[in-house]
């Protein structure tokens, strides 16, 4: 909806943010001369994207000639891309989580046409979560229900302060729900108390050797009193993140120890005794307190992050977390949700599933979709050196993949569709610049709780730039044309 502030510059309201899986839909953008001047209600990452996206953008198409990226026309880059993909026998098409559902749909059509492997970035984020959900199910909900009703919020292996900066403000402890109040006052009181305690500790340390101990986490927990009727937040992680500092309880688990702690909590919830003093660095008394909080809440939720999926145990960690949630539903109501990273990684899984039956790592080389993560997933295909060409869209695997897989990707003919000259684009053989989805072109995305939302076009793209969907459709058309006798 467009509106104006008196005679001032136009404001576009209710803009959906194309950064993280929160997909905040209350962004207001001030526009002047086809440029975003200010992003209101935006977190630091959202503001960085809306206000600075054009600083390092690329508007030129390139093809590598004699070892150097050389400027070419968009038509030539599309023709070259079609030629590479049509000639390959086992191409991989990767990325998809930072583009629209419409572009993903076109990508799946392309993968089927050329008989390639298509995988999205969930393969290196919540892929193990998907495998766990396929094994044991998921007790899910939408974020609105959590905002209004949840009185116990657990972030496990996830750091919303850094990765989803407005998650707590919009959906959990710092939001006002219909039946739950925000806990801003409690947190600000605690921060003030912490500040006073630090000052006292600094003065005490000048006179007494043990004065500094007041600064330790243990000392802090003793000050952590809060009203029993209010929402509570627990953070469980391997390091004391900024999110941990906002929590009522922080459990620091030894690296690789999440599975042990999850199973210990399951045992305690079933009234079993633990014959040890601590589990993965967490004292059993603390685990007992947490188990009590879990059982006695009205509606609890576990938001889990890559701390579970990327650590030792991977899908088994997530499976244990889901089983813990299932166990808790014998005593109370409990839910669980993955903290999805990219703004449309949930959309990628959704579109992949409705088009092929599988959420990621889909192999069309047999003429029909096959799914076997560990074999058909991007890292494994690249590590084995099986792929003989690649198309990367809206992603940067050269930065995000382990070096061996990234090196093999750089060694094969590589096409990159991206608004930035990313590290992956800089090693590519064909680079096609695209318009920014959610800024220069519209599209559909799925929020982390599977709610579909529309991205807006708020400014015009530079002349000649196409959307991801249009670029993919043109490559597909060119491949089909070249196949005709």
């Amino acid at each position, binding site marked *: 909806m467009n509106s104006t502030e008196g005679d001032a510059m136009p404001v576009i309201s209710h803009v959906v943010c194309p950064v993280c899986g929160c997909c905040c839909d209350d962004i207001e953008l001030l526009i002047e001369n086809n440029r975003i001047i200010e992003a209101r209600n935006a977190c630091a990452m959202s503001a*960085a994207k809306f206000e600075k996206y054009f600083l390092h953008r690329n508007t030129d198409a390139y093809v590598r000639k004699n070892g150097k990226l050389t400027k070419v026309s968009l038509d030539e880059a599309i023709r070259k891309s079609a030629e590479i993909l049509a000639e390959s026998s086992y191409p991989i098409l990767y990325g998809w989580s930072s583009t629209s559902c419409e572009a993903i749909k076109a990508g799946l059509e392309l993968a089927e046409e050329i008989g390639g492997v298509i995988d999205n970035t969930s393969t290196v984020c919540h892929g193990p979560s998907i*495998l766990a959900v396929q094994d044991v199910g998921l007790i899910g909900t939408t974020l609105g229900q959590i905002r209004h009703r949840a009185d116990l919020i657990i972030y496990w292996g996830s750091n919303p302060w850094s990765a989803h900066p407005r998650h707590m403000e919009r959906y959990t402890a710092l939001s006002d729900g219909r039946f739950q109040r925000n806990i801003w006052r409690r947190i600000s009181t605690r921060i003030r108390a912490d500040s006073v305690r630090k000052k006292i500790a600094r003065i005490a340390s000048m006179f007494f050797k043990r004065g500094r101990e007041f600064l330790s986490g243990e000392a802090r927990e003793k000050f952590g009193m809060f009203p029993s009727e209010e929402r509570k937040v627990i953070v469980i992680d391997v390091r004391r993140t900024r999110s941990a500092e906002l929590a009522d309880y922080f459990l620091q688990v030894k690296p690789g120890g999440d599975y042990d702690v999850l199973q210990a909590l399951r045992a305690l919830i079933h009234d079993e005794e633990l014959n040890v003093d601590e589990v993965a660095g967490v004292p059993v008394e603390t685990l007992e307190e947490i188990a009590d909080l879990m059982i006695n809440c009205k509606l609890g939720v576990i938001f889990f992050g*890559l701390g579970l999926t990327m650590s030792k145990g991977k899908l088994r960690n997530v499976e244990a977390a889901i089983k813990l949630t299932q166990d808790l539903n014998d005593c109370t109501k409990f839910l669980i949700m993955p903290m999805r990273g990219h703004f449309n990684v949930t959309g990628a899984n959704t579109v992949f599933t409705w088009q092929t039956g599988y959420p990621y790592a889909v192999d069309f080389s047999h003429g029909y979709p096959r799914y076997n993560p560990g074999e058909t997933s991007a890292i494994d295909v690249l590590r084995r050196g099986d792929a003989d060409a690649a198309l990367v869209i809206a992603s940067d695997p050269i930065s995000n993949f*382990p070096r061996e897989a990234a090196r093999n990707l750089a060694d094969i003919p590589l096409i990159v569709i991206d608004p930035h000259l990313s590290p992956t684009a800089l090693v590519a053989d064909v680079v096609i610049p695209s318009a920014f989805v959610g800024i220069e072109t519209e599209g559909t995305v799925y929020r982390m709780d599977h709610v579909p939302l529309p991205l807006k076009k708020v400014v015009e793209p530079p002349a000649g730039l196409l959307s991801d969907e249009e670029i993919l459709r043109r490559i597909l058309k060119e491949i089909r044309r070249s196949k005709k006798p």
Partner: protein
Amino acid sequence: MRIIILTGRTIDQGCGKEIGKTSKDYMESVAICEMNEEDMKKIRIRDGDRVKVTTKFGSVVLIAKKSRRISSPGTAFIPYGPWANCITGSATDGTGMPLLKGVPASVEPTDEKVLTIRDLINSFMS
């Protein structure tokens, strides 16, 4: 000194990647190794010194940062990005997901320079 490497998101890394990965902001937010103060004393380095982190998969030079968030000695944190991925392996054990957190490593002071994003890209091209 032996250490466990944790990787993850930071707000600076998140902002840097949105501005552009060839930007100075991105490198300054990502080519770092957050360490516990005791560990830094053990290997005699100060905040801002360079360290070489080595695993069985490779090594990388980073800027050491003292962090109170690394409350336990024996662990260090590197934000997600191309520098962190120089030292991670690609075996997925049949899951599709490599082990990107909790990788055993050694860390030592160094005079070697921190590679820029262009240096890293050139190393791929060669």
